[in-house]
């Protein structure tokens, strides 16, 4: 059974009118039943196109797509009867309720009683949506939408389930539930395709197909790739300043890759290189098992160095004390408290993370702190200035980078830079020199006349950062800053942030992804509008330690703390 592939891709190439490079280039792959096949790669790598080819909705420019034994270019009905497809944004009708969405898809799939009723009960129990039957899909949280989307795709148990980026905008708890649900399905012999931009997700799949710019760069079990980094990965602990330690390590030729994990630095050494040496007193080096991402970055030739030209030219911000301060921040919408009594103080040169499930109040808190939402009660201060009373002056001290890099898409790189320089009041010589510096640091030279929307993803990320820091702010607000980008770009980004922090810039960041959270000095976990835990990533891990998870990851800690909070509330 399992030996017969559900999907067979032979030399599949896809070109779009106007596109210079093919979106997909000679893809050869098979999708098997009973396992999860991860489709990994950054935004624009061709993941969505490949999934759409498997639905038969589009035809390849060259090559052959065979789904469930049928060529995907003739009558699609036999294919469509046996596949479940969840497009990006879940394909739900937001104006319909949970039940109405299910009813609709059941009718479309010809699901009749008595199977229908059973199927509804099973899926509502499975997705834990029974309580929300009458709620409009548009009013569900990201995680619940995703579960509903999955339920709709599963109504008539398919043989092949195609999920396009189901993990985007979904918090760790929902993501874990989704994995559990999908795991159940593969147990029944269903083949699942799961696309993702995050390698930590890809690592959990049974098989991965890694795409990069339309080419298949790796296909096989993730362990197959991970193995290549075996014996080359280390944790450095007991460091004085882990950020400078990382920067130093990354500049060494024998280090391929390095990231911060809580108080530790994780290094991947070049093939054949010796283990890292102790360079400072108290430093402890211990080998750790490799991760998929380590091997992937190694395969691409390694991450960027540890120097940040951006930070080197940045003004030094001296002094201690609090830069960003939340004091009893509360936001109420009618009876609903989106955020209640949030208080914390972020010291100069600290990276502070806001974590929490969707709809828990994390974004509301973030927005109050940068002045986008006016708090119902409490005060938000930046550099001692109250955002509610002294808005423009306070805002001049901050830089802001939104999710999906909200640049002016139709404006060129040069025009975007000129605009942000103007808005932040840079003029004359300073404006010219800052613009030139940004162009030089980020290598914008050849792209100056390119519209922001046409830039490669990595450059978009750079431009967004450049626009946010040109005026050399004291504090930087980052809202899911690296969602959807490739690991190399993410490393480059964090190298700059680490460098800026060492110059005294203070960072507030929200994220759903734990490897970003690991860069933080401290994180606050927001749940149901309350701050349920604040501390260093290692603190949180320690707090969540239990018999079952003696050494929890940050994600496990996150989930554990939230479950503990739930239990406490129920007990009360």
């Amino acid at each position: 059974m399992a030996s017969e592939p559900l999907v067979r891709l032979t030399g599949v190439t896809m070109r779009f009118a106007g596109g210079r490079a093919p979106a997909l280039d000679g893809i050869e792959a098979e999708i098997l039943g009973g396992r999860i096949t991860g489709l990994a790669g950054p935004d624009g790598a061709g993941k969505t196109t490949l999934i759409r080819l498997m639905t038969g909705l589009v035809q390849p420019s060259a090559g052959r797509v065979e789904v469930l034994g049928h060529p995907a270019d003739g009558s699609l009905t036999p294919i469509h009867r046996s596949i479940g497809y969840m497009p990006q944004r879940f394909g739900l009708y937001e104006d319909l309720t949970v039940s109405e969405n299910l009813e609709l898809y059941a009718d479309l799939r010809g699901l009749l009683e008595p199977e229908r009723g059973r199927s509804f009960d099973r899926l509502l129990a499975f997705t834990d949506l029974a309580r929300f039957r009458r709620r409009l899909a548009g009013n569900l949280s990201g995680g619940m939408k995703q579960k509903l989307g999955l339920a709709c795709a599963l109504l008539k148990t398919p043989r092949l389930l195609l999920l396009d980026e189901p993990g985007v905008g979904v918090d760790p708890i929902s993501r874990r539930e989704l994995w559990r649900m999908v795991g159940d399905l593969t147990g029944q012999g269903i083949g699942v395709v799961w696309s993702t931009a995050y390698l930590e997700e890809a690592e959990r799949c049974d098989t991965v197909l890694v795409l990069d710019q339309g080419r298949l760069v790796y296909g096989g079990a993730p362990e197959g790739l991970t193995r290549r980094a075996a014996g080359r990965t280390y944790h450095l602990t007991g460091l004085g300043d882990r950020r400078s330690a990382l920067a130093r390590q990354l500049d060494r030729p024998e280090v391929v890759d390095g990231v911060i994990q809580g108080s530790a630095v994780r290094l991947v050494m070049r093939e054949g290189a010796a283990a890292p040496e102790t360079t400072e007193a108290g430093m402890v080096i211990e080998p750790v098992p490799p991760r998929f991402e380590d091997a992937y970055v190694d395969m691409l030739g390694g991450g960027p160095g540890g120097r940040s030209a951006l930070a080197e030219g940045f003004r030094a911000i001296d002094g201690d004390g609090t830069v960003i301060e939340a004091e009893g921040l509360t936001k109420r919408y009618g009876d609903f408290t989106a955020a209640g009594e949030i208080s914390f103080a972020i010291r100069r040169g600290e990276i502070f993370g806001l974590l929490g499930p969707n709809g828990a109040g994390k974004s509301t808190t973030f927005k109050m702190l940068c002045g986008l939402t006016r708090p119902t009660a409490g005060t938000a201060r930046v550099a001692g200035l109250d955002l509610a009373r002294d808005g423009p002056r306070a805002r001049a001290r901050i830089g802001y980078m939104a999710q999906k890099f909200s640049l002016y898409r139709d404006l060129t790189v040069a025009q975007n830079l000129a605009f942000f320089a103007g808005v932040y009041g840079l003029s004359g010589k300073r404006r010219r020199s800052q613009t030139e510096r940004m162009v030089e640091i980020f290598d914008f030279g050849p792209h100056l006349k390119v519209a922001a929307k046409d830039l490669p993803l990595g450059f978009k990320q750079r431009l967004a950062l450049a626009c946010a820091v040109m005026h050399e702010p004291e504090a930087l607000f980052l809202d899911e800053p690296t969602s959807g980008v490739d690991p190399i770009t993410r490393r480059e980004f964090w190298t700059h942030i680490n460098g800026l922090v060492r110059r005294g810039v203070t960072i507030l960041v929200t994220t759903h992804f734990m490897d970003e959270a690991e860069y933080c000095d401290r994180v606050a976990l927001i749940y149901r509008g309350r701050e349920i835990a604040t501390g260093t990533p290692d603190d949180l891990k320690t707090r969540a330690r239990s018999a079952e998870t003696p050494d929890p990851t940050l994600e496990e800690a996150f989930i554990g703390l939230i479950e503990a909070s739930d239990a406490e509330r129920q007990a009360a």
Partner: protein
Amino acid sequence: MGRILALVIKELLALLRDPKGRMVLIGPPILQLFVFSYAATLEVSNVRIGVLDRDDGLWSAELLQRLDASDTFAEIVPVDGVQAIDRLIDQRQVIAVLHLGPAFSRDLMAGTDATVQLLLDGRRSNAAQIVEGYVRRLLSDLNRDARARAGLPAIPEDPLVVRHWFNPTLEYQWFTVPSLLAMLTMLMGLIVTSLSVARERELGTFDQLLVSPLTPAQILAGKSLPPLLVGLFHGTVFLLAAIFFFGVPFTGSLALLYGSLVVYLAAVIGIGLFISSLSATQQQAILGSFLFAAPAVLLSGFATPVENMPEWLQTATLINPLRHFLVIVKGLFLKDMPLETVAASALPLALIAIVTLGTAAWLFRRRMG
């Protein structure tokens, strides 16, 4: 100031950088100006009229000839009998049927009253009334000529000496083209303004502006100036087209026109900003603009005089900027309208501008810290 300038430059670039954006700003308005100028006419020409001629005499033949020669009628459809009249009018093959009795020519020559029937299609009552007026004039000329030919005493001249001021030959385009200048600048200004905020909100860049050190007043100014420039550009293009292409005389003061255009645009932009501060998406902004623009155009005095509306609706139109500017623009084109008369219409415009811009500023501030 530098900050506002940066905003203005950015807005203009966003509008003009991409060729498609430039096209949208230039193509449709020009196209609309031309199509509307030629299509939006209440004059009647080239219609078909049926004639049931029972007379078959000299004067009925003369009448047919004169009908045929006129521009109003494209075709004279001969009608065989009374039954055929129904079918022709019912099926809209003709707009009217002229029924001449057997004694038509005889009565005319005899100098007695000749009776004719004119049956008109009331479904198109407006055009039909114009046709009636035209047929009346034609017949009264015919009567005069017939009496002269028969040597009967001439009937008194038309007791009216009519002079059409400002537009002696009643050129319809002298009316439509200046009105379109006012109407199209409003439509474009409204769309450009209301979309600029909604687009930024959709793309997330509006938050980017809100977290910058710009004050609400600066953002408002940065959002208002570009549509003002665009509006002045459209106004100028339409003005040039009106004078040089359509040959509409411009008798008034250019300075007054531009001065009042600025006030008018300020009122329009205020409304656009008001709409955009209420709408979350571009689609809502478009629908909101439409919801305002459709009544504004219909109740402006362009399609029909404001005096024809019920009293309460006339009062309601006072908040319609187009209504006031139409008076100014027609006045400056055709009537050499003096300053105090222009000011009397510009004052309400200024009031509308102050109220809408003020409200928009308040709504903006409410969203910000």
